[in-house]
């Protein structure tokens, strides 16, 4: 057979073909890389919001707790808090929550788990005004036989406090002592340190150490259950707790001198206030069952709502 290609420049043709093929391969490789990148990005975007339902369920729980807490506080604020009123309000709120969530394509229920528990709102004041703490001597019990307590706060005029340091505060600064059933005690001393109101903690008669302080501007409130100090226009969250870990059964004021102020606590029924402490019936807590159901998630929880209870 004759070599017909010899008549033409066959090698040049092959070179062109190889070049073009190389280019094609290069472009294809780049395309594959781009497609792979796009696939990864698409997967990333497609799976970005898989936990959205979970956050909605948690949000519903938070909203329900806030709503029931608001109802309890409103009932107590009016005086003579009646647990039945809170029960009725929770029963009335259930269908509303159901309708709200139905609009979002999910099923949500809010039901009363059991009846709201009753409590007492204890107040130490003089018709709402500050009252001297030494009316019953230098050491007296505010409440005993205590089971659960929330919203315990002492509002005090800082100018009536003793000026001292943390280490020596246990000798003469006014203290709030928490005793448990085995008489272990934790005492929080309130004292003035320059222009600040400070709180020092002593366990079983040990040396007090400073827990928290705030530069005071007028009446200053020590929120024991919330671990917070507040004064006019300022508040500070204390990193060290102002509520003892010993499940207190009694709250007592010690080392009382010329201090003046008010004290308030909501306690569960069964506690006994001492002396002339205002004692008003109140609602202590409510327990609700919350259910959230979407296409992918079923969330059920039972929450006990007692606004202001220590963590």
């Amino acid at each position, binding site marked *: 057979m004759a070599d*017909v*290609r010899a*008549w*033409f420049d*066959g090698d040049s*043709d092959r070179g*062109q*073909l190889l070049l*073009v*093929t190389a*280019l*094609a391969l290069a*472009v*294809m490789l*780049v*395309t594959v890389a*781009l497609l792979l990148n796009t696939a990864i*990005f698409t997967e990333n*975007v497609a799976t970005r919001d898989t936990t959205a339902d979970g956050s909605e369920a948690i949000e519903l729980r938070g*909203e329900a707790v*806030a*709503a029931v807490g*608001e*109802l309890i506080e*409103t*009932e107590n*604020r*009016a005086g003579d808090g009646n647990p039945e*009123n*809170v029960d*009725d*309000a929770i029963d*009335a*709120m259930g*269908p*509303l*929550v159901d*309708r*709200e969530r139905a*609009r979002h394509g999910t099923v949500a229920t809010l039901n009363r788990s059991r009846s709201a528990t009753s409590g007492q709102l204890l107040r130490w004041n003089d018709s709402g005004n500050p009252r001297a703490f030494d009316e019953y001597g230098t050491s007296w019990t505010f409440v005993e036989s205590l089971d659960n307590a929330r919203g315990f706060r002492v509002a005090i005029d800082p100018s009536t406090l003793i000026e001292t340091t943390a280490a020596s505060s246990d000798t003469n600064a006014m203290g709030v002592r928490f005793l448990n059933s085995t008489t272990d005690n934790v005492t929080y001393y309130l004292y003035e340190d320059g222009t600040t109101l400070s709180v020092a903690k002593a366990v079983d008669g040990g040396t007090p150490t400073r827990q928290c302080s705030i530069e005071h501007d007028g009446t200053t409130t020590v929120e024991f259950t919330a671990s917070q100090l507040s004064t006019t226009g300022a508040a500070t969250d204390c990193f060290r707790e102002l509520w003892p870990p010993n499940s207190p059964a009694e709250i007592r004021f010690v080392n009382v001198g010329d201090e003046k102020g008010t004290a308030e606590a909501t306690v569960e029924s069964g506690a006994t206030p001492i002396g002339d402490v205002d004692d008003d019936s109140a609602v202590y807590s409510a327990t609700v069952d919350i259910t959230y159901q979407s296409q992918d998630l079923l969330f059920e929880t039972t929450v006990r709502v007692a606004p202001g209870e220590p963590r």
Partner: protein
Amino acid sequence: MRRTQTVDDTDRGQAHTVEAFIAALLLVSGLLFAMQATAVTPLSASTSNQHIENQQRALTGDLLSTAAEDGTLQEAVLYWNASRGAFQDSPDQGYYTDSGSQNTFLSRLNDTLAERRIAYNVRLRVHNTTGTPSRRTVSMVGMGRPSDNAVTASRMITLPDSAMLTGSDSRSLSTVASKPNESFYAPDADPANELLYNRVEVRVTTWRM
């Protein structure tokens, strides 16, 4: 002569086919590159726009949570003039038509959103249990029609019967409900109950101006 010409055509045909594929690939690649290089504006639909929407939703949700926590959301919802039947200091429409600082919540929306060129509508959805249970929607702030990329965040708050209006009429909701010449936008969802008044869903819709 004729036969050699045929062999040459066969080789050329293969090269032309590959060249055609290359040309097609180059054209497609060019198009893809051009599309990637197109400027993405805040209003064009794209993945980066999705990111902006997520940011706006998170920002508005956080604003609502903070306001609900410190009570300013409830203050805004109750900033109502019962004798006029409109939000306090609002224009004739009965709701605010521009960003403003009439109360703390609106002031925060103004500082956080309006100053970043983000428009917003605030609407309140309440329960109406008279007759067939339904929900009624009331405007608090209306800044116009939202764009296609608008996002909405919402928050529920519960109003008790004893909640006091924060506008010039300092009256409780149950008192307003009992007066024939005064009105509040939300009816009492359960008149038999003396504690619960209604639940209000505050919906804030935001979009880039």
